[in-house]
């Protein structure tokens, strides 16, 4: 392998402000016999925005689902903000507390109002008093620009509004990292922008983010680093300019030629 290629598959250089937030070392994940993630090494720095792209089935979602233990990794280690993920339920809950997640299908709780959706975890997990939690929730709804929807139920809102509530819900726990799992893939085209704008605001405010997405415009504009995955491996890593204008790997070039 040439020297440039070696550098380009190295995702362990830390961006952001240089402090390591997430450290994945030699991580493997199997589903039965299927080798879903192969020897993943990746570091994410505080305040860094990493966008993960790649064809479907490449293991992007599995990667970020391993970071908050929605999937259990089989080999290697994952350290989030200094806490290593193990079978210890306390460690898992500590990491989940500091790690927000936004899902493709929103996963709002349909039986709770928007306000209750946002305040449930802070009240239940962080023991924050009701009044305080609701005040915070209203601030967050201002921030995602739907304060007038606080009393509604998820089923009464559009997809874009629901996803913004989901973002507010994850922010309510004051997380150090937010994982986005294809947040715009289930949305109608005219609603994608409102969600991406919300995510851009977050990035500008210095939130550490890992986004699995198909929105190349977003990747180009917001990402500090782009990680390209295929067949369970990290194929290429680079800054957006480098990645989109001068991809090194054949696999990356093929992927980009298909989608751009």
């Amino acid at each position: 392998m040439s020297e440039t290629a070696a550098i380009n598959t190295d995702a362990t250089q830390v961006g952001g402000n240089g402090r390591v937030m997430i450290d994945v070392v030699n991580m493997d994940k199997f589903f039965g016999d299927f080798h879903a993630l192969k020897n993943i090494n990746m570091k994410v720095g505080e305040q860094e925005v990493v966008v993960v792209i790649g064809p479907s089935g490449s293991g992007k979602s599995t990667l970020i689902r391993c970071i908050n233990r929605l999937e259990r990794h089989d080999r290697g280690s994952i350290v989030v903000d200094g806490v290593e993920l193990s079978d210890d339920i306390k460690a898992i809950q500590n990491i989940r507390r500091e790690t927000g997640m936004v899902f493709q299908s929103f996963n709002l709780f349909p039986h709770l109002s928007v306000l209750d959706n946002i305040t449930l975890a802070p009240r239940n997990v962080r023991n924050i008093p009701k009044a305080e939690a609701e005040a915070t929730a209203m601030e967050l709804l201002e921030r995602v620009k739907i304060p007038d929807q606080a009393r509604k139920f998820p089923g009464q809102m559009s997809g874009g509004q629901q996803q913004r509530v989901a973002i507010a819900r994850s922010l309510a726990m004051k997380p150090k990292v937010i994982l986005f799992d294809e947040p715009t893939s289930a949305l109608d085209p005219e609603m994608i922008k409102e969600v991406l704008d919300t995510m851009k605001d977050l990035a500008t405010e210095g939130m550490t983010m890992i986004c699995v997405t198909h929105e190349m415009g977003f990747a180009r504009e917001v990402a500090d680093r782009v990680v390209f995955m295929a067949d369970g491996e990290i194929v290429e890593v680079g800054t957006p300019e480098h990645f989109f204008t001068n991809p090194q790997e054949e696999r990356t070039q093929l992927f980009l030629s298909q989608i751009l």
Partner: protein
Amino acid sequence: MVDKAANYLGDDIMSALAVDSTPPSAKLSPGDWMKKNLFSNAANSIVSLIVGLAAAALVWFGLKWIINADFAIIRANLRIFLIGQFPKEELWRPWASAYVLILGAGLMTGAMARNSYELDISQELEPVKESWGQMVRRFWPVLLVSIFFVSFARTIMPYIGLAAAFVLIVVTRELGWRMPAAVRQRALYIGVLLFIVSMLVIAGTSRLGGYALGLVVFIWMMSELSQVETLPVGFVGTLVRAAIALVIAAAVAVIQNLIPHDGFGWENWGGLHISLFTTVVGITLGMPFGILLALGRKSNLPVLKTASVIFIEFVRGVPLISLLLFSNLMLPLFLPIDFERPADLTLAIVVITGFSAAYIAEIVRGGLQAVPKGQTEAAQASGMSAASVQRFIVLPQALRAVIPAMVGQFIALFKDTSLLSIIGILEFLRVSDTSNAQQEFVGKGLASVTYLFVAIGYWAFAYTMSKESRRLEAKLGVGHR
């Protein structure tokens, strides 16, 4: 020529543009309706005719039978049909108990209706207050059947009692509607406490009633104290709250027990009352037990899982009758000799509770599986504990999804209480047999009269439950999700 064509085209476009936004009227005259639905073709006409004739014959013979039937047996036994061998000098108890029950139900439902009304307003929806006409339409089977029952009374008292009950329903519901918001939020606890009090009124004071009151007060106080923010949070806070709640609950139980015991338990209960009572108790005790069994069956702990599976599959695989007989005939053989034999009804309630719990467990399990995995994941991802995820996210959605199946189970349980007669309990259906065995009525072939009476009674309550279930289903939008 050209002009004409242009004109023609213009008219056509104009008429196409003039949108008629009213839907076409579907109203048919009675004649047209019959023609369309009953006699549209030869086959349809023949079916309509045959079914029509059969229905007419049924009504004719039915009416003839009813007019000629001798209802003296009902008149003579009305009290036994409704409350069994309840001592005559204690008759005030069932009445007082019913009024306390109405008080609780009226306050609770009135307050809950108002709460959902206010919720609609806060969500900018069109709020609806149910009119009394709609209420009558909702509960007409029970209303009609209670008037029907009382019409067999031989004194004026039951008429006055029933009229007073109707007035009380109206008054308490309006009162519940008008209660201040802080009281309305606690309506459920008030309703449950009054339900237990009504049971105590009819049975007299008892230690069991004291425990039941204490348990409800404890749960209530825990929920009240969780709102108090001056108390510490976390595990210590929970301990402090539990201690305070326990003291209050214990005080309530002790005070209840200090009231002189002037009741006589449930030895003399019977009739429709016992059927309704065992149903309600079977449901209220079977629900939490069934939910725990369902969670146990899904648990990762092998011991818990196996125990739940064995219990559920054993109870579901055996007829209720055999369980009742087992509890009545064989269980005492296993108990120590000096152990006082529990009352028949106590044993029956234990069996009915276990029986309904096993069925409820399977229904709830279906509901648990219907909750999408994403819901659990979203809750887990925010750091909630496994218990909290179940309690706040999974169970509320699972239970909502299984309401129709659950009510079906309740209706089945209500009808199954007729099996209690097998262990010598004088429930509603058995009164039919005992009254036909009375000296003045024996051998007169009046069983059809008493069976009809009993059937109407069962039907009124079962049909109301089924109507309410459909209403609840529509309200919660179960069918839409």
